[in-house]
């Protein structure tokens, strides 16, 4: 099943990954290659396996079969140091998961200082620079609860990219936000995409998928039904399942 073309190894190479939760077969042989600077957007109904796939890539869930390669290293090998692998991947969660007992700046510099051993001055310089870039420089000393949802999520994104990860995983990062706050978060993601980050994101925002994605992947019941450029998937879907899904979610922003 996992007969891969040896030439197409990207930053991330998911090979025939299976995942079961008890009787539920959540991922049924996922193959997915992500090249450097590529933004891949996973779409699909709830329970289609998008989030589980992201979790297996970050080793938060153990795969039941198949392999996941990160820049050529088999990260599903049990001999791998799990923490070292995770340090190379940035993750942003649906509910931000900022640490409420730390200031915004402390959240951002935590991994730089405690995982990578960056000096305090250097880490805080970079942290403040990143916060300034997203327009939250003046909130560095605040505690996360004082910020709006959109601001918190932007801080969470900055926390994830502060250590220059090889790969950024975004798990429905706008699902918990008010519609008017979604824009500011998605603008930041577009910026990251432009500046060359490699991104895999699960989302329900079809218009956004269309805007930033180099490739859109449609998942259903743990299987990749169809994948292609946003134009191919949204304008000219080949498979009936994809057409049905897109018709159901609609796209309020489509022309």
């Amino acid at each position, binding site marked *: 099943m996992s007969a891969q073309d040896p030439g197409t190894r990207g930053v991330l190479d998911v090979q025939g990954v*299976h995942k079961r939760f008890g009787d539920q077969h959540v991922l*049924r*042989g996922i193959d997915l290659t992500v090249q450097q600077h590529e933004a891949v957007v996973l779409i699909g109904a709830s329970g289609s396996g998008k989030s589980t796939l992201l979790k297996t890539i970050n080793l938060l869930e153990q*795969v039941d*079969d*198949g392999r996941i390669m990160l820049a050529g290293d088999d990260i599903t090998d*049990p001999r791998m140091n799990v923490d070292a692998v995770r340090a190379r991947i940035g993750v942003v969660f649906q509910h931000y998961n900022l640490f409420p007992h730390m200031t915004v700046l402390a959240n951002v510099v935590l991994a730089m200082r405690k995982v990578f051993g960056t000096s305090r001055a250097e880490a805080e310089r970079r942290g403040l620079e990143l916060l300034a870039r997203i327009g939250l420089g003046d909130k560095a000393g605040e505690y996360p609860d004082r910020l709006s949802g959109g601001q918190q999520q932007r801080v969470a994104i900055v926390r994830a990219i502060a250590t220059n990860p090889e790969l950024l995983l975004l798990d429905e990062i706008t699902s918990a936000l008010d519609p008017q706050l979604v824009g500011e978060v998605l603008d930041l993601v577009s910026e990251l995409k432009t500046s060359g980050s490699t991104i895999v994101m699960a989302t329900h925002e079809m218009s956004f998928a269309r805007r930033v994605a180099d490739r859109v992947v449609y998942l259903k019941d743990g299987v*990749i039904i*169809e994948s292609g450029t946003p134009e191919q998937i949204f304008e000219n879907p080949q498979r009936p399942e994809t057409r049905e899904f897109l018709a159901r979610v609609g796209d309020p922003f489509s022309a």
Partner: protein
Amino acid sequence: MSEARQSARLQHSGQEFAPSPIELERRGYRRARKRQSILVSIASTLVFAAALVLVLVNSPGWDAVRETFFDPAIAIEAFPRVITGLWLNIQVLFVAAIGVAILGTLLAIARTLKGPVFTPLRLIAAGYTDLFRGIPVLLVLYLVGFGIPGLELTGRLPAQFWGTVALILCYSAYVSEVLRAGIDAVHPSQRLAARSLGLSHAKTLRLVVMPQAVRKVTPALMNDFVSMQKDVGLISVLGAVDAIRAAQIEVASSYNFTPYVLAGLLFVLLSLPFIRLTDWLTARAQRREQIGGVV
């Protein structure tokens, strides 16, 4: 990705799941690692136990200590009396636990009441907990056990009655503080949601806040319970013939400390089921309410 491959995969997914060689190798490695860590833990436990036994047995006074503290014959002889005494401990514990639960909850609620009308109640509750957390249990036992009967308000009541009262007074102060922490830890949005459904303040507290509060502090409550379980032995100072007192009587007649060791062992055995129950309850709550929490 070609469509032919996709449809091949769809067919495959319908079939029985057969692990690939890669997965089998991984499973083999994990099994080997698990075996290895079990062996290491067994080996280190054995080495540690052996070292401990060697030090004990080779110490110069070991023979004398073994005779005075670990004499099986005396343990068997003392057993019926000590176990009868332990039954009294269990009875006292049972009554005291219920008393503590009621008084502790009332105190905790009194301390969390808001509003100026309740100020005296709040102050009394605060004063009570400050007082009884500060006094040594032994002192309370003496004061209650010998002082209150001295007032001659009631007829003669057995020592274990006053012992139980003293334990309730002390432990409800501790338990009320634990419960109060639990009540404060329930997020305000929960009260808001309950009140929005039309539940009264009392019903909100009883149906929504307290169940969550108790769950949050179960380990701490169980800790207090186990602690009380052994402090029940202190009622012996009032003359109640409990396990400790029974052991003391045996010690006095045999000039051998084995009955104390026996009583201690029985107290430990008594606490074990509750400790295991606590672990199980905590684990279950975690499984139910914090899904996906293990990394």
